[in-house]
Protein backbone atom coordinates (compact mmCIF):
# COMPACT_ATOMS: atom_id res chain seq x y z
CA UNK A 1 0.00 0.00 0.00
CA UNK A 2 2.74 2.41 1.03
CA UNK A 3 4.67 2.08 -2.20
CA UNK A 4 1.63 2.92 -4.30
CA UNK A 5 1.20 6.36 -2.71
CA UNK A 6 2.47 9.29 -4.73
CA UNK A 7 2.80 11.25 -1.50
CA UNK A 8 2.37 10.14 2.06
CA UNK A 9 2.94 11.69 5.46
CA UNK A 10 3.19 9.67 8.66
CA UNK A 11 2.42 11.32 12.00
CA UNK A 12 3.80 14.58 10.65
CA UNK A 13 4.18 17.20 13.37
CA UNK A 14 5.28 20.80 13.34
CA UNK A 15 4.95 23.49 15.96
CA UNK A 16 5.91 27.12 16.11
CA UNK A 17 6.57 27.42 19.83
CA UNK A 18 3.30 26.47 21.48
CA UNK A 19 1.31 26.58 18.25
CA UNK A 20 0.92 23.17 16.59
CA UNK A 21 0.35 23.78 12.87
CA UNK A 22 0.68 20.08 12.03
CA UNK A 23 -0.58 17.65 14.59
CA UNK A 24 0.26 14.02 13.73
CA UNK A 25 -0.97 14.32 10.16
CA UNK A 26 -1.35 10.99 8.39
CA UNK A 27 -2.10 11.71 4.79
CA UNK A 28 -2.04 9.74 1.55
CA UNK A 29 -2.17 11.05 -1.98
CA UNK A 30 -2.67 8.34 -4.59
CA UNK A 31 -1.31 8.46 -8.13
CA UNK A 32 -3.64 10.42 -10.38
CA UNK A 33 -5.54 11.71 -7.35
CA UNK A 34 -7.76 14.80 -7.40
CA UNK A 35 -7.63 15.57 -3.74
CA UNK A 36 -8.63 18.74 -1.92
CA UNK A 37 -7.38 19.97 1.42
CA UNK A 38 -9.82 22.36 3.06
CA UNK A 39 -10.14 24.04 6.40
CA UNK A 40 -10.62 27.44 7.99
CA UNK A 41 -8.01 30.19 7.78
CA UNK A 42 -4.97 29.41 9.90
CA UNK A 43 -5.75 25.68 9.96
CA UNK A 44 -2.23 24.90 8.76
CA UNK A 45 -2.88 24.12 5.08
CA UNK A 46 -0.08 26.27 3.70
CA UNK A 47 2.20 25.03 6.47
CA UNK A 48 1.44 21.48 5.34
CA UNK A 49 2.55 22.35 1.81
CA UNK A 50 5.68 23.99 3.21
CA UNK A 51 6.47 20.88 5.23
CA UNK A 52 5.94 18.52 2.33
CA UNK A 53 8.11 20.62 -0.01
CA UNK A 54 10.84 21.21 2.54
CA UNK A 55 10.41 24.95 3.06
CA UNK A 56 9.76 24.06 6.70
CA UNK A 57 11.46 21.27 8.62
CA UNK A 58 9.05 19.02 10.49
CA UNK A 59 9.40 18.62 14.24
CA UNK A 60 8.79 14.88 13.87
CA UNK A 61 7.19 12.41 11.49
CA UNK A 62 7.92 11.22 7.97
CA UNK A 63 7.31 12.39 4.42
CA UNK A 64 7.40 9.86 1.60
CA UNK A 65 7.41 10.54 -2.12
CA UNK A 66 6.60 7.50 -4.22
CA UNK A 67 7.45 5.35 -1.21
CA UNK A 68 10.83 6.99 -0.62
CA UNK A 69 11.60 8.86 2.58
CA UNK A 70 12.38 12.50 1.69
CA UNK A 71 11.97 13.97 5.19
CA UNK A 72 15.61 15.07 5.38
CA UNK A 73 16.03 16.12 1.75
CA UNK A 74 16.40 19.71 0.54
CA UNK A 75 13.71 21.46 -1.45
CA UNK A 76 15.71 21.02 -4.65
CA UNK A 77 16.13 17.29 -4.10
CA UNK A 78 12.39 16.89 -3.59
CA UNK A 79 11.67 18.82 -6.77
CA UNK A 80 14.02 16.47 -8.63
CA UNK A 81 11.85 13.60 -7.41
CA UNK A 82 8.81 15.10 -9.10
CA UNK A 83 7.28 17.37 -6.48
CA UNK A 84 6.04 20.83 -7.50
CA UNK A 85 3.92 23.47 -5.84
CA UNK A 86 2.33 26.85 -6.40
CA UNK A 87 1.95 29.60 -3.83
CA UNK A 88 -1.10 31.13 -2.22
CA UNK A 89 0.46 34.54 -2.77
CA UNK A 90 2.25 34.80 -6.11
CA UNK A 91 5.95 34.03 -5.99
CA UNK A 92 7.05 34.97 -9.46
CA UNK A 93 9.97 36.70 -11.13
CA UNK A 94 8.02 39.89 -11.53
CA UNK A 95 10.57 41.83 -13.52
CA UNK A 96 11.13 39.02 -16.02
CA UNK A 97 8.96 38.09 -18.96
CA UNK A 98 6.27 35.43 -18.65
CA UNK A 99 8.21 33.27 -21.09
CA UNK A 100 11.38 33.56 -19.03
CA UNK A 101 9.55 32.65 -15.81
CA UNK A 102 8.65 29.30 -17.32
CA UNK A 103 11.99 28.94 -19.11
CA UNK A 104 13.82 29.17 -15.79
CA UNK A 105 11.79 26.24 -14.43
CA UNK A 106 12.27 24.08 -17.51
CA UNK A 107 16.03 24.83 -17.63
CA UNK A 108 16.27 23.71 -14.04
CA UNK A 109 14.34 20.51 -14.74
CA UNK A 110 16.50 19.76 -17.77
CA UNK A 111 19.65 20.29 -15.73
CA UNK A 112 21.00 23.04 -18.00
CA UNK A 113 20.49 25.94 -15.58
CA UNK A 114 24.05 25.72 -14.30
CA UNK A 115 25.55 26.22 -17.76
CA UNK A 116 27.86 29.23 -18.04
CA UNK A 117 28.38 29.79 -21.69
CA UNK A 118 25.37 29.10 -23.87
CA UNK A 119 22.91 32.03 -24.12
CA UNK A 120 19.74 31.07 -22.26
CA UNK A 121 17.36 32.27 -24.98
CA UNK A 122 19.12 30.19 -27.62
CA UNK A 123 18.14 26.92 -26.00
CA UNK A 124 15.41 26.55 -28.55
CA UNK A 125 13.97 23.28 -27.27
CA UNK A 126 13.54 24.72 -23.78
CA UNK A 127 12.02 27.99 -24.97
CA UNK A 128 9.69 26.22 -27.39
CA UNK A 129 8.46 23.96 -24.63
CA UNK A 130 7.87 27.00 -22.40
CA UNK A 131 5.95 28.73 -25.15
CA UNK A 132 3.83 25.64 -25.86
CA UNK A 133 2.94 25.45 -22.18
CA UNK A 134 1.87 29.11 -22.14
CA UNK A 135 -0.15 28.48 -25.27
CA UNK A 136 -1.95 25.59 -23.57
CA UNK A 137 -2.84 27.85 -20.64
CA UNK A 138 -4.00 30.61 -22.97
CA UNK A 139 -1.38 33.21 -21.98
CA UNK A 140 1.02 32.88 -24.93
CA UNK A 141 -0.06 36.27 -26.24
CA UNK A 142 1.62 37.85 -23.20
CA UNK A 143 4.75 35.71 -23.34
CA UNK A 144 7.13 38.65 -23.74
CA UNK A 145 5.52 40.95 -21.19
CA UNK A 146 6.94 41.35 -17.70
CA UNK A 147 4.88 39.42 -15.18
CA UNK A 148 4.26 42.53 -13.12
CA UNK A 149 2.40 44.11 -16.04
CA UNK A 150 -0.18 41.31 -16.16
CA UNK A 151 -3.61 41.34 -14.56
CA UNK A 152 -3.66 39.36 -11.33
CA UNK A 153 -5.81 36.59 -12.77
CA UNK A 154 -3.29 36.00 -15.51
CA UNK A 155 -0.42 36.09 -13.04
CA UNK A 156 -2.16 33.22 -11.25
CA UNK A 157 -1.95 31.25 -14.49
CA UNK A 158 1.78 31.99 -14.75
CA UNK A 159 2.08 30.72 -11.19
CA UNK A 160 0.63 27.40 -12.36
CA UNK A 161 2.65 27.41 -15.59
CA UNK A 162 5.96 27.66 -13.72
CA UNK A 163 5.03 24.61 -11.64
CA UNK A 164 3.90 22.67 -14.71
CA UNK A 165 7.22 23.46 -16.40
CA UNK A 166 8.74 21.03 -13.90
CA UNK A 167 6.60 18.17 -15.30
CA UNK A 168 5.64 17.13 -11.76
CA UNK A 169 4.35 13.75 -10.67
CA UNK A 170 2.88 15.36 -7.56
CA UNK A 171 1.44 18.86 -7.79
CA UNK A 172 0.39 20.94 -4.80
CA UNK A 173 -1.79 23.96 -5.63
CA UNK A 174 -2.15 26.40 -2.74
CA UNK A 175 -5.40 28.30 -3.32
CA UNK A 176 -4.90 28.76 -7.06
CA UNK A 177 -7.93 31.03 -7.35
CA UNK A 178 -7.06 33.25 -4.37
CA UNK A 179 -7.42 36.92 -5.21
CA UNK A 180 -8.88 36.23 -8.63
CA UNK A 181 -12.18 37.97 -9.46
CA UNK A 182 -14.98 35.40 -9.67
CA UNK A 183 -15.53 36.18 -13.34
CA UNK A 184 -12.06 34.77 -14.05
CA UNK A 185 -12.01 31.70 -11.80
CA UNK A 186 -13.58 29.73 -14.66
CA UNK A 187 -10.31 29.86 -16.62
CA UNK A 188 -8.37 28.53 -13.67
CA UNK A 189 -10.84 25.71 -13.06
CA UNK A 190 -10.59 24.74 -16.72
CA UNK A 191 -6.80 24.65 -16.57
CA UNK A 192 -6.91 22.40 -13.54
CA UNK A 193 -9.52 20.13 -15.07
CA UNK A 194 -7.37 19.69 -18.17
CA UNK A 195 -4.24 18.68 -16.22
CA UNK A 196 -2.53 15.45 -17.19
CA UNK A 197 -4.61 12.78 -15.39
CA UNK A 198 -1.49 10.92 -14.23
CA UNK A 199 -0.43 13.86 -12.04
CA UNK A 200 -1.33 13.35 -8.39
CA UNK A 201 -2.99 16.64 -7.48
CA UNK A 202 -3.53 18.15 -4.07
CA UNK A 203 -5.47 21.38 -4.16
CA UNK A 204 -6.05 23.74 -1.27
CA UNK A 205 -9.04 25.93 -1.90
CA UNK A 206 -11.60 28.12 -0.24
CA UNK A 207 -13.91 28.35 -3.21
CA UNK A 208 -16.30 25.46 -2.56
CA UNK A 209 -17.63 25.46 -6.09
CA UNK A 210 -14.10 24.83 -7.34
CA UNK A 211 -13.47 22.13 -4.72
CA UNK A 212 -16.62 20.20 -5.54
CA UNK A 213 -16.01 20.42 -9.25
CA UNK A 214 -12.48 19.10 -9.12
CA UNK A 215 -11.97 16.96 -6.04
CA UNK A 216 -12.84 13.31 -5.82
CA UNK A 217 -11.52 13.17 -2.28
CA UNK A 218 -11.44 15.81 0.43
CA UNK A 219 -9.46 16.14 3.64
CA UNK A 220 -10.57 18.65 6.25
CA UNK A 221 -7.88 20.19 8.42
CA UNK A 222 -8.68 22.10 11.60
CA UNK A 223 -6.01 23.53 13.87
CA UNK A 224 -3.33 21.31 12.40
CA UNK A 225 -5.38 18.15 12.88
CA UNK A 226 -7.15 16.09 10.24
CA UNK A 227 -10.81 16.30 11.21
CA UNK A 228 -12.17 13.96 8.57
CA UNK A 229 -11.44 12.62 5.11
CA UNK A 230 -13.87 11.29 2.52
CA UNK A 231 -15.62 11.74 -0.79
CA UNK A 232 -17.17 15.14 -1.52
CA UNK A 233 -20.62 13.76 -0.71
CA UNK A 234 -19.44 12.40 2.64
CA UNK A 235 -17.73 15.66 3.53
CA UNK A 236 -20.72 17.76 2.60
CA UNK A 237 -22.94 15.58 4.77
CA UNK A 238 -20.60 15.40 7.74
CA UNK A 239 -22.12 17.19 10.72
CA UNK A 240 -18.73 18.13 12.23
CA UNK A 241 -17.61 19.67 9.01
CA UNK A 242 -20.82 21.61 8.64
CA UNK A 243 -20.36 22.86 12.14
CA UNK A 244 -16.70 23.95 12.09
CA UNK A 245 -16.22 24.86 8.54
CA UNK A 246 -18.93 24.79 5.97
CA UNK A 247 -21.67 26.34 8.02
CA UNK A 248 -25.10 25.79 6.55
CA UNK A 249 -24.38 27.22 3.13
CA UNK A 250 -23.42 24.03 1.38
CA UNK A 251 -25.88 21.71 -0.24
CA UNK A 252 -24.60 18.18 -0.84
Amino acid at each position, binding site marked *: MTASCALETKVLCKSFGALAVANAINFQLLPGARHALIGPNGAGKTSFVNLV*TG*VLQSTSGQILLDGEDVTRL*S*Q*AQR*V*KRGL*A*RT*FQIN*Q*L*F*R*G*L*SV*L*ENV*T*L*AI*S*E*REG*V*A*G*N*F*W*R*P*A*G*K*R*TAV*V*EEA*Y*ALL*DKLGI*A*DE*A*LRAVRELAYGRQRLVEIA*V*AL*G*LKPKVLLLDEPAAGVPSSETGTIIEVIERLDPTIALLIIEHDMELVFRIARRITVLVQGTVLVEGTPAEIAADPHVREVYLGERVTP
Partner: protein
Amino acid sequence: MTAKSAAHTIATFARRHRLRPMEALPWVLAVAAYFVFPDYLALGAQILATLLFGLSADLVLGYAGIVTLGHAAFYGVGAYTAGYLAAHGVGSPIIGLIAAMVAAGAVGFISGLIILRTQGLSILMLTLVVCVMLQEAANKMTSITGGADGLQGMEVQPVLGMFRFDMYGHTAYWYALGVLFLGWAVTRTIVHSSFGRSLTGIRENVARMNAIGTPVFFRLVTIYTISAMLAGAAGALIAETTQLVALNVLSVDLSGTILVMIILGGVGRLYGAFIGVPLYMIAQDRFSTIDPTYWYFWIGLLLVLVVAFARGGILGMADAVLRRFKRSP
Protein backbone atom coordinates in the same frame (compact mmCIF):
# COMPACT_ATOMS: atom_id res chain seq x y z
CA MET B 1 -1.29 32.51 -37.20
CA THR B 2 -0.39 30.93 -33.88
CA ALA B 3 2.58 29.11 -35.37
CA LYS B 4 3.88 32.31 -36.90
CA SER B 5 3.57 34.37 -33.74
CA ALA B 6 5.13 31.51 -31.78
CA ALA B 7 8.18 31.56 -34.01
CA HIS B 8 8.27 35.33 -33.80
CA THR B 9 8.05 35.36 -30.00
CA ILE B 10 10.75 32.73 -29.64
CA ALA B 11 13.02 34.59 -32.06
CA THR B 12 12.48 37.86 -30.18
CA PHE B 13 13.29 36.12 -26.93
CA ALA B 14 16.58 34.84 -28.36
CA ARG B 15 17.48 38.17 -29.95
CA ARG B 16 18.35 39.96 -26.75
CA HIS B 17 21.54 37.90 -26.56
CA ARG B 18 22.83 39.31 -29.84
CA LEU B 19 25.90 41.47 -29.71
CA ARG B 20 24.62 44.97 -30.53
CA PRO B 21 26.67 47.63 -32.35
CA MET B 22 26.43 49.86 -29.27
CA GLU B 23 28.45 47.33 -27.32
CA ALA B 24 31.51 48.23 -29.38
CA LEU B 25 31.30 51.82 -28.15
CA PRO B 26 33.25 51.46 -24.88
CA TRP B 27 36.14 49.83 -26.71
CA VAL B 28 36.18 52.41 -29.48
CA LEU B 29 36.18 55.16 -26.87
CA ALA B 30 38.91 53.46 -24.85
CA VAL B 31 41.17 53.18 -27.89
CA ALA B 32 40.38 56.75 -28.94
CA ALA B 33 41.14 58.02 -25.44
CA TYR B 34 44.64 56.59 -25.73
CA PHE B 35 45.35 58.90 -28.64
CA VAL B 36 43.34 61.92 -27.51
CA PHE B 37 44.57 62.07 -23.91
CA PRO B 38 48.20 60.88 -23.99
CA ASP B 39 48.92 62.77 -20.77
CA TYR B 40 46.28 60.90 -18.79
CA LEU B 41 47.21 57.29 -19.51
CA ALA B 42 48.11 56.51 -15.91
CA LEU B 43 44.68 57.68 -14.78
CA GLY B 44 43.21 55.84 -17.75
CA ALA B 45 44.81 52.56 -16.71
CA GLN B 46 43.45 52.99 -13.19
CA ILE B 47 39.99 53.63 -14.56
CA LEU B 48 40.17 50.50 -16.69
CA ALA B 49 41.31 48.37 -13.75
CA THR B 50 38.60 49.82 -11.52
CA LEU B 51 36.09 49.10 -14.26
CA LEU B 52 36.94 45.43 -13.99
CA PHE B 53 36.43 45.71 -10.24
CA GLY B 54 33.06 47.35 -10.93
CA LEU B 55 32.03 44.56 -13.31
CA SER B 56 32.84 41.98 -10.66
CA ALA B 57 30.85 43.88 -8.03
CA ASP B 58 27.89 44.14 -10.40
CA LEU B 59 27.85 40.35 -10.90
CA VAL B 60 27.35 39.94 -7.17
CA LEU B 61 25.15 42.94 -6.37
CA GLY B 62 23.32 43.63 -9.60
CA TYR B 63 22.79 40.11 -10.89
CA ALA B 64 22.75 37.81 -7.88
CA GLY B 65 21.39 40.46 -5.51
CA ILE B 66 24.02 39.82 -2.83
CA VAL B 67 24.44 43.10 -0.97
CA THR B 68 28.11 43.30 -0.08
CA LEU B 69 30.10 45.93 1.74
CA GLY B 70 33.32 43.99 1.58
CA HIS B 71 34.12 43.49 -2.05
CA ALA B 72 37.50 45.19 -1.62
CA ALA B 73 38.56 42.07 0.30
CA PHE B 74 39.07 40.27 -3.01
CA TYR B 75 40.52 43.25 -4.79
CA GLY B 76 42.98 43.69 -1.93
CA VAL B 77 43.96 40.03 -1.78
CA GLY B 78 44.60 40.18 -5.52
CA ALA B 79 46.70 43.33 -5.19
CA TYR B 80 48.79 41.95 -2.32
CA THR B 81 49.28 38.60 -4.06
CA ALA B 82 50.55 40.17 -7.27
CA GLY B 83 52.55 42.72 -5.29
CA TYR B 84 54.13 40.15 -3.00
CA LEU B 85 55.17 37.97 -5.93
CA ALA B 86 56.67 40.94 -7.78
CA ALA B 87 58.60 41.91 -4.66
CA HIS B 88 59.95 38.37 -4.32
CA GLY B 89 61.32 37.67 -7.74
CA VAL B 90 58.17 36.57 -9.58
CA GLY B 91 57.81 39.70 -11.68
CA SER B 92 55.83 38.33 -14.62
CA PRO B 93 52.62 40.36 -14.67
CA ILE B 94 50.59 37.53 -16.21
CA ILE B 95 51.70 35.04 -13.55
CA GLY B 96 50.97 37.67 -10.89
CA LEU B 97 47.53 38.19 -12.38
CA ILE B 98 46.68 34.51 -12.43
CA ALA B 99 48.02 33.96 -8.91
CA ALA B 100 45.96 36.94 -7.72
CA MET B 101 42.82 35.43 -9.25
CA VAL B 102 43.46 32.07 -7.62
CA ALA B 103 44.10 33.63 -4.20
CA ALA B 104 41.12 35.98 -4.37
CA GLY B 105 38.93 33.16 -5.69
CA ALA B 106 39.95 30.96 -2.77
CA VAL B 107 39.09 33.70 -0.28
CA GLY B 108 35.77 34.27 -2.09
CA PHE B 109 34.94 30.57 -2.06
CA ILE B 110 35.74 30.02 1.60
CA SER B 111 34.10 33.20 2.89
CA GLY B 112 31.16 32.56 0.55
CA LEU B 113 30.56 29.14 2.12
CA ILE B 114 29.96 30.92 5.42
CA ILE B 115 28.44 34.23 4.40
CA LEU B 116 25.98 33.07 1.76
CA ARG B 117 24.05 30.86 4.16
CA THR B 118 22.65 34.05 5.67
CA GLN B 119 20.47 36.75 4.16
CA GLY B 120 19.85 40.48 4.08
CA LEU B 121 21.50 42.50 6.81
CA SER B 122 23.54 39.53 8.06
CA ILE B 123 25.20 39.21 4.65
CA LEU B 124 25.98 42.91 4.67
CA MET B 125 27.58 42.68 8.11
CA LEU B 126 29.52 39.50 7.37
CA THR B 127 30.99 40.81 4.10
CA LEU B 128 32.05 43.90 5.97
CA VAL B 129 33.59 41.82 8.76
CA VAL B 130 35.63 39.73 6.28
CA CYS B 131 36.99 42.90 4.71
CA VAL B 132 37.89 44.51 8.04
CA MET B 133 39.52 41.32 9.30
CA LEU B 134 41.67 40.99 6.20
CA GLN B 135 42.74 44.60 6.41
CA GLU B 136 43.66 44.19 10.05
CA ALA B 137 45.58 41.02 9.24
CA ALA B 138 47.47 42.85 6.49
CA ASN B 139 48.20 45.65 8.95
CA LYS B 140 49.66 43.19 11.50
CA MET B 141 51.62 40.94 9.13
CA THR B 142 54.22 43.58 8.38
CA SER B 143 56.85 41.06 7.27
CA ILE B 144 54.67 40.04 4.34
CA THR B 145 52.65 43.15 3.56
CA GLY B 146 54.82 45.97 4.83
CA GLY B 147 51.94 46.95 7.13
CA ALA B 148 51.00 50.59 7.20
CA ASP B 149 54.04 51.56 5.10
CA GLY B 150 52.79 49.50 2.20
CA LEU B 151 54.50 46.78 0.23
CA GLN B 152 58.10 47.65 -0.65
CA GLY B 153 60.30 46.70 -3.53
CA MET B 154 57.98 45.50 -6.29
CA GLU B 155 59.76 44.80 -9.54
CA VAL B 156 57.34 44.09 -12.34
CA GLN B 157 58.80 42.65 -15.52
CA PRO B 158 57.66 43.50 -19.03
CA VAL B 159 54.29 42.14 -20.14
CA LEU B 160 54.86 38.90 -22.06
CA GLY B 161 58.57 39.68 -21.72
CA MET B 162 58.24 42.39 -24.36
CA PHE B 163 56.37 45.47 -23.15
CA ARG B 164 58.11 47.28 -20.35
CA PHE B 165 55.96 49.38 -18.00
CA ASP B 166 56.90 52.99 -18.77
CA MET B 167 56.42 56.15 -16.75
CA TYR B 168 53.81 57.53 -19.17
CA GLY B 169 51.51 54.54 -18.77
CA HIS B 170 51.46 53.34 -22.39
CA THR B 171 51.99 49.70 -21.49
CA ALA B 172 49.83 50.00 -18.38
CA TYR B 173 46.96 51.32 -20.46
CA TRP B 174 47.01 48.56 -23.07
CA TYR B 175 47.63 45.86 -20.51
CA ALA B 176 44.67 47.02 -18.40
CA LEU B 177 42.49 47.37 -21.48
CA GLY B 178 43.35 43.85 -22.63
CA VAL B 179 42.60 42.29 -19.25
CA LEU B 180 39.39 44.31 -18.92
CA PHE B 181 38.28 43.12 -22.33
CA LEU B 182 38.78 39.49 -21.34
CA GLY B 183 36.98 40.09 -18.06
CA TRP B 184 34.11 41.73 -19.90
CA ALA B 185 33.88 38.84 -22.38
CA VAL B 186 33.65 36.36 -19.52
CA THR B 187 31.13 38.49 -17.64
CA ARG B 188 28.94 39.03 -20.67
CA THR B 189 28.93 35.33 -21.48
CA ILE B 190 27.96 34.50 -17.91
CA VAL B 191 25.12 36.99 -17.58
CA HIS B 192 23.52 35.82 -20.82
CA SER B 193 23.87 32.12 -19.97
CA SER B 194 21.28 29.96 -18.24
CA PHE B 195 23.44 30.20 -15.11
CA GLY B 196 23.38 33.99 -15.31
CA ARG B 197 19.63 34.09 -15.79
CA SER B 198 19.18 31.80 -12.81
CA LEU B 199 21.13 34.35 -10.74
CA THR B 200 18.64 36.99 -11.81
CA GLY B 201 15.92 34.57 -10.77
CA ILE B 202 17.50 34.28 -7.33
CA ARG B 203 17.62 38.06 -7.04
CA GLU B 204 13.99 38.39 -8.14
CA ASN B 205 12.56 35.63 -5.95
CA VAL B 206 14.58 33.16 -3.90
CA ALA B 207 11.50 31.34 -2.63
CA ARG B 208 10.43 30.51 -6.16
CA MET B 209 13.92 29.46 -7.21
CA ASN B 210 13.94 26.99 -4.31
CA ALA B 211 10.52 25.78 -5.41
CA ILE B 212 11.69 25.02 -8.96
CA GLY B 213 14.59 22.98 -7.62
CA THR B 214 17.48 25.40 -7.92
CA PRO B 215 20.49 24.65 -5.72
CA VAL B 216 20.48 28.30 -4.66
CA PHE B 217 23.36 28.20 -2.18
CA PHE B 218 25.62 26.40 -4.64
CA ARG B 219 24.83 28.94 -7.39
CA LEU B 220 25.57 31.84 -5.06
CA VAL B 221 28.88 30.39 -3.91
CA THR B 222 29.82 29.84 -7.55
CA ILE B 223 29.15 33.41 -8.66
CA TYR B 224 30.72 34.81 -5.50
CA THR B 225 33.91 32.89 -6.30
CA ILE B 226 33.94 33.97 -9.95
CA SER B 227 33.33 37.57 -8.94
CA ALA B 228 36.12 37.38 -6.35
CA MET B 229 38.50 36.14 -9.04
CA LEU B 230 37.65 39.08 -11.29
CA ALA B 231 38.04 41.50 -8.40
CA GLY B 232 41.40 39.87 -7.66
CA ALA B 233 42.45 40.43 -11.27
CA ALA B 234 41.49 44.10 -10.94
CA GLY B 235 43.58 44.38 -7.77
CA ALA B 236 46.53 42.75 -9.51
CA LEU B 237 46.19 45.23 -12.39
CA ILE B 238 46.35 48.16 -9.99
CA ALA B 239 49.32 46.69 -8.13
CA GLU B 240 51.27 45.95 -11.30
CA THR B 241 50.55 49.18 -13.11
CA THR B 242 51.18 51.49 -10.14
CA GLN B 243 53.85 49.24 -8.54
CA LEU B 244 52.32 50.15 -5.24
CA VAL B 245 50.17 48.29 -2.73
CA ALA B 246 49.00 49.78 0.54
CA LEU B 247 46.34 48.95 3.11
CA ASN B 248 43.66 51.05 1.42
CA VAL B 249 43.15 48.29 -1.20
CA LEU B 250 41.47 46.27 1.55
CA SER B 251 39.34 49.08 2.93
CA VAL B 252 35.61 49.14 3.56
CA ASP B 253 35.82 52.64 2.13
CA LEU B 254 36.82 51.23 -1.24
CA SER B 255 34.09 48.56 -0.97
CA GLY B 256 31.56 51.35 -0.56
CA THR B 257 33.06 53.51 -3.29
CA ILE B 258 32.82 50.77 -5.91
CA LEU B 259 29.14 50.34 -5.03
CA VAL B 260 28.59 54.07 -5.40
CA MET B 261 30.23 53.96 -8.83
CA ILE B 262 28.10 51.12 -10.17
CA ILE B 263 24.91 52.46 -8.63
CA LEU B 264 25.58 55.76 -10.41
CA GLY B 265 25.91 53.93 -13.71
CA GLY B 266 23.13 51.44 -13.05
CA VAL B 267 23.39 48.00 -11.42
CA GLY B 268 22.50 44.68 -13.03
CA ARG B 269 23.02 46.05 -16.52
CA LEU B 270 26.54 44.98 -17.37
CA TYR B 271 27.32 48.44 -18.78
CA GLY B 272 26.52 50.36 -15.62
CA ALA B 273 30.14 50.07 -14.53
CA PHE B 274 31.28 51.44 -17.89
CA ILE B 275 29.37 54.64 -17.16
CA GLY B 276 29.69 54.96 -13.40
CA VAL B 277 33.36 54.14 -12.92
CA PRO B 278 34.85 56.59 -15.47
CA LEU B 279 32.35 59.26 -14.45
CA TYR B 280 33.21 58.95 -10.77
CA MET B 281 36.96 58.75 -11.28
CA ILE B 282 37.14 61.61 -13.75
CA ALA B 283 34.89 63.73 -11.55
CA GLN B 284 37.11 62.87 -8.59
CA ASP B 285 40.17 63.86 -10.55
CA ARG B 286 38.63 67.17 -11.70
CA PHE B 287 36.70 68.16 -8.57
CA SER B 288 39.61 67.39 -6.28
CA THR B 289 41.73 69.99 -8.06
CA ILE B 290 38.94 72.57 -8.39
CA ASP B 291 37.47 72.06 -4.94
CA PRO B 292 39.77 69.80 -2.88
CA THR B 293 37.81 70.17 0.37
CA TYR B 294 34.32 69.53 -0.86
CA TRP B 295 34.67 67.33 -3.92
CA TYR B 296 33.17 64.38 -2.07
CA PHE B 297 30.14 66.52 -1.33
CA TRP B 298 29.53 66.95 -5.07
CA ILE B 299 29.85 63.22 -5.67
CA GLY B 300 27.43 62.64 -2.82
CA LEU B 301 24.98 65.11 -4.28
CA LEU B 302 25.18 63.40 -7.66
CA LEU B 303 24.49 60.05 -6.01
CA VAL B 304 21.50 61.41 -4.11
CA LEU B 305 20.06 62.82 -7.34
CA VAL B 306 20.56 59.58 -9.19
CA VAL B 307 19.00 57.46 -6.46
CA ALA B 308 16.09 59.87 -6.03
CA PHE B 309 15.28 60.51 -9.67
CA ALA B 310 16.92 57.79 -11.72
CA ARG B 311 16.30 54.36 -10.27
CA GLY B 312 18.50 52.10 -12.30
CA GLY B 313 21.20 54.74 -12.50
CA ILE B 314 22.21 56.77 -15.49
CA LEU B 315 21.76 53.83 -17.85
CA GLY B 316 18.31 53.16 -16.44
CA MET B 317 17.39 56.78 -17.05
CA ALA B 318 18.72 56.62 -20.61
CA ASP B 319 16.66 53.48 -21.19
CA ALA B 320 13.49 55.15 -19.95
CA VAL B 321 14.06 58.21 -22.14
CA LEU B 322 14.74 56.06 -25.21
CA ARG B 323 11.62 54.01 -24.62
CA ARG B 324 9.43 57.09 -24.36
CA PHE B 325 11.06 58.42 -27.50
CA LYS B 326 10.24 55.23 -29.39
CA ARG B 327 6.64 55.12 -28.19
CA SER B 328 5.73 58.64 -29.32
CA PRO B 329 6.95 58.84 -32.91
